C-alpha cells in the first residue's frame, strides 16, 4: 500500500519550489501572508482567521493520521455531449488538470482519522468549480458502496458550484445516483457525516451534502441552493450580508454545527466516537489495512 506521492510530499512539509517565494493576499482583511505560513496554519489567515478554500490534497493531509488509499482515481471524464463553447470541454478539463494537479473534482479513498478507519471523500473547487459530472458522481457512489461493503463510516467534504453544465443531463442524474448510494449505505446501518465547505451549492447541496446523519459546516462557508447572483437577479434587491453563510444556516436550523477549521479534526474524532463508538487503536495504519482488507505487513515492507 504505497503512500500517494502528493501525500508523502505534504507529510514532509516540503514547500514546492514554485511556491516558496509566493505571497498571498487575504481576500478578507487584505494582509499579505507568506504562503508557507498560510499552509502551516491550515490555510487560515493568521490575521483575521479567514478560511481559504483548500486543495483536496491539503485537506486530506491535514485530516488523516498517516495514509490515504485512493479509490476511483482511474475514472476520467469523457465528453458525452461533444461540448464546445469558447474552447472544447476536453480542453477545459486539460487546463484544470494542469492548474489543479487533480484528475477530477473529488478525491475519494480510505484513511484513518484519530485511529478510526473511514471512507473519505474531499471535493475541490479548483477543478471545474467542484461541479458534479459523471466522474464525481461515480467516485462518490463508489465511495459509499465501498464504505457499505467494509462497514466503514463515511465522511464527505463538499465544495461545489452544482451540476456540471458541460455534461448536461448525465450530470444531473448523478444527484439521483449518489442519493441511491447514500440511502442504501444508510439503510444498511452506515454512519455518514458531511462537512460543507466554501462554497456548497446547487446539485451537490441538493443531494448528498444534505443527506448526512450529521451535517457540519466550516465557519463562514457559503452554502445554499441557488447561487447568490441568481437570487439577486430574480428579486432585484441586495441580499443581507450573512445570507447563505454557514452561520445563517445554523440559525435557520438547517445544519448541526459550524466548526472552525482548527477544531475540525478533533470534532470529527468525537463524532466518530459518538456514531460508532470508535476505539482508538494504537496503530491506525494496521486498523486501516484490516478495514480495507489489505494483508497486514511486516516491519520491512513498511520501510
Amino acid at each position, binding site marked *: 500500500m504505497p503512500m500517494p506521492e502528493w501525500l508523502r510530499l505534504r507529510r514532509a512539509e516540503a514547500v514546492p519550489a514554485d511556491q516558496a517565494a509566493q505571497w498571498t493576499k487575504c481576500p478578507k482583511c487584505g494582509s499579505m501572508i507568506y504562503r508557507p505560513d498560510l499552509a502551516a496554519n491550515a490555510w487560515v489567515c493568521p490575521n483575521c482567521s479567514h478560511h481559504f478554500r483548500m486543495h483536496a490534497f491539503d485537506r486530506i493531509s491535514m485530516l488523516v493520521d498517516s495514509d490515504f488509499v485512493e479509490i476511483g482515481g482511474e*475514472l476520467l471524464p469523457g465528453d*458525452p*455531449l461533444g*461540448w464546445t*463553447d469558447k474552447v472544447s470541454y476536453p480542453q477545459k478539463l486539460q487546463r484544470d488538470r494542469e492548474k489543479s494537479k487533480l484528475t477530477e473534482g473529488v478525491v475519494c479513498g480510505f484513511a484513518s482519522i484519530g485511529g478510526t478507519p473511514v471512507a473519505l471523500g474531499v471535493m475541490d473547487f479548483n477543478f471545474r468549480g467542484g461541479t458534479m*459530472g*459523471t*466522474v464525481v458522481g*461515480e467516485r462518490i*457512489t463508489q465511495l459509499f458502496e465501498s464504505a457499505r461493503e467494509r462497514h466503514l463510516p463515511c465522511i464527505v467534504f463538499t465544495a461545489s*458550484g*452544482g*451540476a456540471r*453544465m458541460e*455534461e*448536461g*443531463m*448525465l*450530470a*444531473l*442524474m*448523478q*444527484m*439521483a*445516483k449518489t*442519493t*441511491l*448510494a*447514500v*440511502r*442504501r449505505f444508510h*439503510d444498511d446501518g452506515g454512519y455518514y457525516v458531511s462537512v460543507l465547505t466554501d462554497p456548497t*451549492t*446547487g*446539485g451537490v*447541496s*441538493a*443531494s*448528498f*451534502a*444534505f*443527506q448526512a446523519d450529521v451535517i457540519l459546516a466550516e465557519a463562514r462557508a457559503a*452554502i*445554499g*441552493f*441557488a*447561487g447568490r*447572483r*441568481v*437570487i439577486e*437577479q*430574480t*428579486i432585484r434587491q441586495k*441580499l443581507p450580508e450573512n*445570507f*447563505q453563510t454557514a452561520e445563517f*444556516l445554523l440559525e*435557520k*436550523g*438547517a445544519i448541526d454545527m459550524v466548526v472552525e477549521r482548527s477544531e475540525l479534526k478533533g470534532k470529527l474524532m468525537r463524532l466518530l466516537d459518538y456514531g460508532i463508538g470508535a476505539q482508538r487503536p494504537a496503530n491506525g495504519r494496521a486498523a486501516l489495512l484490516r478495514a480495507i482488507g489489505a494483508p497486514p505487513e511486516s516491519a520491512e515492507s513498511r520501510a
Partner: protein
Amino acid sequence: MNAIVEREKGLIELEQRIAALKTHAAQQPVDMTAEIRALETKYAEIQREVFGTMTPWQRVNMARHPKRPLGSDYIAALDQFDELHGDRHFRDDRAIVGGFAKLRGRRVIAIAQDKGRDTKEKVLRNFGMPSPEGYRKVIRLVQLADHLGLPVVTFVDTSGADPGIGSEERAQAEAIAQSLYELADAGVPIVATVIGEGGSGGALALALADRVLMLEHAVYSVASPEGAAAILWGDAGRAEEAATRLKLTSDDLLQFGIVDEVIPEPLGGAHRDPVGVVASVLAAVDNALSALTVVAPDELRDRRYRKFRRIGAPAT
C-alpha cells in the same frame, strides 16, 4: 414572445381563411371544393415545414407554450382526485398539487407541478417553481404512498425550484435532497412523466422513478437554458445557444438512457389536441404501472438502484 406562438401566427390566419371559405361555400351554390382543398394542402405543407423538425430552442418554446396542457389538466383527467394539502410545517405550496387519485380504476398518489394558466393563477402557483414546502409535501405524500402500498405518479413541469430568499431560509437544498432520498427508498412503483419543462434538480426531485416518460416536445435539462447560459457565460440572453448544446430534447435523452419512453405529440404540439395528449399520457402511465405493480418492493428498489447506477458509469 414565445417563438412557437410567433410561428403559429401565419398558420392561424390560414386556418381562419379556410374556415371562412367553408362557411361561405355552404351558403353559395358555387362549388369551392377545389379552392378549399388547395388551401388545406398549403396549410398542411406549412405545418410540416414549421413543426416537422424543430430546433432545441423551438422545443423549449413548445414546452413553454401558453396553451400547453399543464399539471392540473392531467390531474383533472384522472377518474377521481382528492387533493391533500400542505407540508404539515409551514404552508401549502400551490406550485405542487398532490393527493389520492384513481387512474383507470387503480388507486395511486398523484403529484403534479403546475405553472398556472392565467396571470392570477401563475402568481398563486409561483409560475410552477416549488418552494421547500412543495418538496416537503412530496416527501409526505411519498411516505403516505409507501405506507399504504400505493404507486406514485408524478407529472413534471417546472423551470426549476424557486430561487428566492424565503426558499433559501427554509433550506431549499435540504428539501430537494430529502425528496430524492425518500423516492430512493419507497417500496412502491414510481412513474414520472416530463410533460413540459424539466428544469434541473427542482424537476428531478419528482423524477427519481422506476420509469421516466417524456412527451415528445417536452425538454429536460441540467439547468434551464437561461440558467445554464448565466452560469456558463454570465449572460442569460444566450439561452438559445445553451439550449442547442445541452441535449435536452426527448430523443437525446432516450439515447442517453435517461428517459425510458417518449410519448408522441400531434404535429404542431400537445396544445393542438390537449384532450388526446392527456389521455395518451395517462394510458402510458397506466401501462408502465401494470408492469411495475407485480414487482416485489425489494426488487423494485434494486431495479431502481441499478437503473440510475449505470448512468455515467464506466463501460464494463
